[in-house]
């Protein structure tokens, strides 16, 4: 029971954080077909900017300013980099972002140093919100959940209720049609890329102080974001949302299972002494998303809720 409650609580907060990070990539990927390898680098930039801004002013200013700055950088990257590469096809675009991830990491190292920076949870939120079974649930995590839900509602409102949102939505599913209708597609692309990066930046602001803000944080987070986007399905923010929660819960719940393969498959004669038998479910938790990724791609390439295949 305890494990279940903990698993659910953490799964949801971690899942929502993942969603914040991956919603931007879903937007970018669905509309532009660019699997942005540098997406997690923008997440890292968000955390570092928040560190700088909250150091000189306050966390609350950073919460708004850092994502905006990251979004502007993202827009500039699209305008002066990606757009140039676009005619060479998706592979070239993907490789561009791949190189960009290297570049951002090295620049961050020069500017902020190679080790982690001291980016802390704001004092206002640095207390235990409530206790379950002796473990305290930090108020800041609660705040993360609130911000993520607020972001979800904001995004939903933007996409479903505003004119710009309708155009973006149309561009998500039918990018060519939007161009024919006389909209400025490059401008839309730049905006979406910027917004997507800003969302990643926001996730960085929120997560940088829970985890460690160091130059390796982008590499650590990068692959899992792809998993969310692909498992969720192209063009589907709902899918990304579900996938984030699924992966968050999967990872957190699996940690709580103390069984080894031998315990589970003992009935078919798997021995505790064999290497396969010794593998523990909880130690498998972090690789489960990748297993999910491969299985989804093989058996349901459109993802959980996507409309088209990759």
């Amino acid at each position, binding site marked *: 029971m*305890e*494990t279940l409650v*903990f*698993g659910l609580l*953490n799964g949801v907060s*971690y899942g929502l954080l993942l969603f914040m990070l991956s919603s931007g990539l879903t937007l970018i990927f669905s509309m532009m077909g660019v699997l942005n390898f540098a997406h997690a680098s923008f997440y890292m930039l968000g955390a570092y900017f928040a560190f700088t801004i909250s150091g000189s002013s306050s966390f609350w200013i950073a919460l708004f300013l850092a994502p905006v700055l990251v979004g502007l950088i993202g827009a500039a990257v699209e305008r002066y980099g990606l757009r140039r590469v676009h005619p060479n096809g998706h592979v070239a675009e993907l490789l561009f972002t791949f190189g960009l991830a290297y570049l951002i990491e090295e620049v961050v190292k020069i500017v902020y*140093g*190679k*080790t*982690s920076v*001291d980016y*802390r*949870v704001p004092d206002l939120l640095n207390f*235990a919100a409530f206790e379950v*079974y*002796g*473990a*305290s*649930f*930090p108020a*800041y995590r609660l705040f993360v959940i609130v911000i993520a839900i607020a972001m979800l509602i904001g995004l939903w409102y933007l996409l479903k209720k505003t004119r710009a949102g309708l155009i973006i939505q149309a561009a998500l599913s039918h990018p060519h049609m939007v161009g024919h209708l006389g909209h400025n597609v490059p401008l839309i692309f730049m905006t979406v890329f910027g917004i997507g990066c800003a969302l990643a930046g926001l996730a960085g602001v929120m997560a940088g102080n*829970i*985890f*460690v803000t*160091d*130059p*390796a944080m982008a*590499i*650590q*987070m990068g692959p*899992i974001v792809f998993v969310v986007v692909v498992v969720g399905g192209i063009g589907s923010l709902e899918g990304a949302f579900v996938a984030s929660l699924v992966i968050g819960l999967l*990872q*957190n719940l699996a*940690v*709580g299972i103390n069984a080894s393969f031998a315990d589970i498959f003992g009935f078919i004669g798997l021995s505790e002494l064999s290497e396969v038998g010794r593998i*523990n479910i*909880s*130690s*498998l*938790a*972090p*690789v489960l998303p990748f297993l999910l990724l491969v299985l989804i791609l093989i058996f349901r390439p459109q993802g959980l809720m996507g409309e088209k295949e990759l």
Partner: protein
Amino acid sequence: MTLRKTAILAAATSALAMSAANADTIKMAFIDPLSGPFGPSGEAAYTSYLLAAEHINANGGINGDMIEVTGYDNKVNPKESLLQFQKAIDDGARYIMQGNGSSVAAALIDAVDKHNKRNPGDEVLFFNYAAVTPAFTNELCSFWHFRFDAHADMKMAAITDWIKTQDDIKSVYLIGQDYVFGQAVASAAEGQLSEKRPDIEIVGNELHPLGKVKDFTPYIQKIISSGADAVITGNWGADMQLLTKAAAENGSDVPYLTFYGGSKGAVSSLGDQAVGMLHQVSEGVTNLEANEEQYALIEEYKERFPDYDYYYHRVWNVMDMFKKAAEEAGSADPIPVAKALEGMTIEHAYGTATMRASDHQIQQPLFVSVVSDDVKYGVDNIDLGWKLVDNGTIAMDVAEQPTTCEMERPG
């Protein structure tokens, strides 16, 4: 910092080169990460070697010869290390130093063995200053390899010995990385605890995948709900930082006994929450009582390399022992130096260190310390630093472990 032509070193050596123009240089190769994610870890040690070499040179060198330490970036990759090893030999290095990563150390021990077998007369010695897998001075021991750091079982002996004195610790939780090293740490802890404190219950023995966990909260909550009074972990790198950070955040305030709590950035990322919680075991702590000379050294290091703290005390042990051995042998050739090193004893700032001849494993007192806000020297450029805990001094013979090494010595 240009790695091979460090300006600082060049300045220091060129001044002396004039006075000892016909002296030879003893080339030592530092093969460890100097770029990429593990770069800082390598650089902290590299800077220590540079300063130690500079001091030796300023005092007339070894037998009149100057030492030149050159960095080779191995990117913590075994294959790249072997390549850099060949480069170092080409550049005339007969001594290599490495410490980051047991996989790299294992590859280098193997490579040094093969090189020395295939190139008699051109031998190379390997000074391991931080790779702690016990096997290197047990079943995998080699005449060409000397370890200047306590290995994992010795560190665990120090931790368990301290726990022995803590009557209020009644249950312990073990958490580690799921690979050879993490498994070895866990089994050493189990074995030693059952011997020293049979009444302690091990309430959890968790292995998590290496470097893959982003959020340790679920693990922490398992720890909390297990009701453990202390946690032992051999985690290093991001796994160490994320683990302790999640612990602090979720209100797990029991002692965390770590091997690598002293690594850079760990204390600052926790902040005040680290106080009284984060423990480490090491061969030296800057806030121990020491002589003025040692304090001056700590301060000089900090001034020269403001990004880092005086952490690799054992680097000075490496260099001091090497100097003494070369002077006793009257030569800087690897075989005489190796023979002189066997059984050698030196006095260093925090005690006596002996290089055990049977397995080339250094034996020395170890210290269990905890983060405190009441210290002379802080770390990570904040006010917090490491302070010895009560009963924290572990005598040399307590930490000493038997060895299964059957060393083959050259002719």
